[in-house]
């Protein structure tokens, strides 16, 4: 668990390739939908992405996630999201 806990996951600017995480810039809404990348973002939201967006699992046990976007970091907790990300990383 410790090794996985420190692993970072890249969500590309296009989002589609790692759409399962469903994290977006701005309001940082979390997609409740399944693995469909198209379900997460509208084309307008996609065009507003300021550049790379990086998601890092800070603490898998508590579901604490950190998102780096533009010149900011946003920390939130979502155990379901962390579980989904870690399963995808297996």
């Amino acid at each position, binding site marked *: 668990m410790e090794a996985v806990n420190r692993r970072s996951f*890249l969500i590309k600017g*296009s989002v589609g390739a790692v759409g399962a995480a469903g994290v977006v810039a701005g309001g940082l809404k979390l997609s409740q939908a399944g693995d469909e990348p198209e379900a997460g973002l509208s084309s307008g939201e996609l065009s507003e992405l300021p*550049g790379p967006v990086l998601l890092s699992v800070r603490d898998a046990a508590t579901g604490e996630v950190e998102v780096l976007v533009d010149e900011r970091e946003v920390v939130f907790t979502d155990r379901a999201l962390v579980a989904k990300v870690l399963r995808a990383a297996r």
Partner: protein
Amino acid sequence: MSSHREAPGISKDPVADNTDTYAFVTPNNTVTIITNYLPVEAPAGGPNFYEFGSDVTYQINIDNDGDGRADVTYQFTFETLTTNPNTFLYNTGTIDRLDSPNWNRRQRYTVTKITENGRRKTLARRVPCPPCNIGPRSTPNYAALADAAVTRLPDGERVFAGQRAEGFFVDLGSVFDLATLRPFQSLHLIPTANAAGVDALAQANVHTIAIEVPIPKVTKRGRVPTDPMDRSSTIGVWGAAYRQRATLRGFDPDGNTFEGGGAVGPWIQVSRLGNPLFNEVIVPLARKDEWNAKLPHRDSGFARFVAQPELAKLLPALYPGVFPNLAGLTADRADLLAILLTGIPPGLIDGFQNFTGDTQADLLRLNLAIPPSASPNRLGLLGGDLAGFPNGRRVSDDVVTIELRAVAGATYPLVDSTFTPDAAVVGDNAIEDGTFNNPGRTFLDRFPYLGVPYSGYEVPAA
């Protein structure tokens, strides 16, 4: 060295490695602050000559109320332009002016002033850097070319950012060989015949960010201080470099580019420098990276390394019989705590103080009410020159010798008049590394004060 590759982390990131910080009062009620980066540049640096990091934010931070936090900040950010995509060369002909079409790889920068409440004001955009000093065919009139890059800003500041000759001097090869001082090495635990010091940086260059600021712009009261004993006369200065939290390489493992590469996240301090040699000599190796990341107002956690400096214990062991009084000095070094972390309070040196309060922070403290010295003494305060280090730092101050002697006990009588320094740290034959007298080292008598950089043609090997 003062802070050249001084910590494991920053030693691998030269463009963000703050090597020296200087601050001194200059004519016309101005203060000049200089911060250097890119340690130990070999002048023959082609084909990719040295440059600032366009993904680094550089700052000159000034505390004017003693809390160890910046009240006035000058921020410098760079952009890099490649004007000719069809050549492998830095220049395709002589660079005789800053807009020369022969110059392929150039930088320019933005200067932003940030005040205490976070208010930002862009002072200038697209300020040109000079090229590196390449040689007589590429940069034949280098001094004038670099002078043209000294830029006056609308608010009264002057700035320069570009290559300069290294001003710091030290016998690096000997001091990190078990603290050998060549002029005194016959007294070392492993003795050899005495020899002259060798300046390891004698023909190296650095990249300099320099600013000359009207003094009222950096003081709390907005005036030129005239009373050296007024606490508000002193400012604390440090340089620092910042990177964003993460960098994503814009290539996948097959070498294909993809969208989304670049730096992202908040800016994190990766290097800083107030007093010379603080991180280099005081902070243990295992904590040097942490120190670079910490903000100065949190330096109390490092105070114990100042109070009981490792070097003060090594000297008596490495030079048997030379430092008997230092060997017997076991009390906390209140003199060093003052010099490095709070400033020197009133009452210790006649007519002088640069005390900023109880907050322990590694800042280069400069009492702005002390005028420049007509005849600077390389030993600064130790030599009776109130305008020199550790009251700020001038480019020619011999900070290695000053700090060596201070750590060896020369300044302890300031706080304990019963202590007698060892003969080795006082008088004309006191210890030093022997690198001050280098006729090849030159400084300017005007802004930006550091000398014209060595050219790659004339110094093919550093």
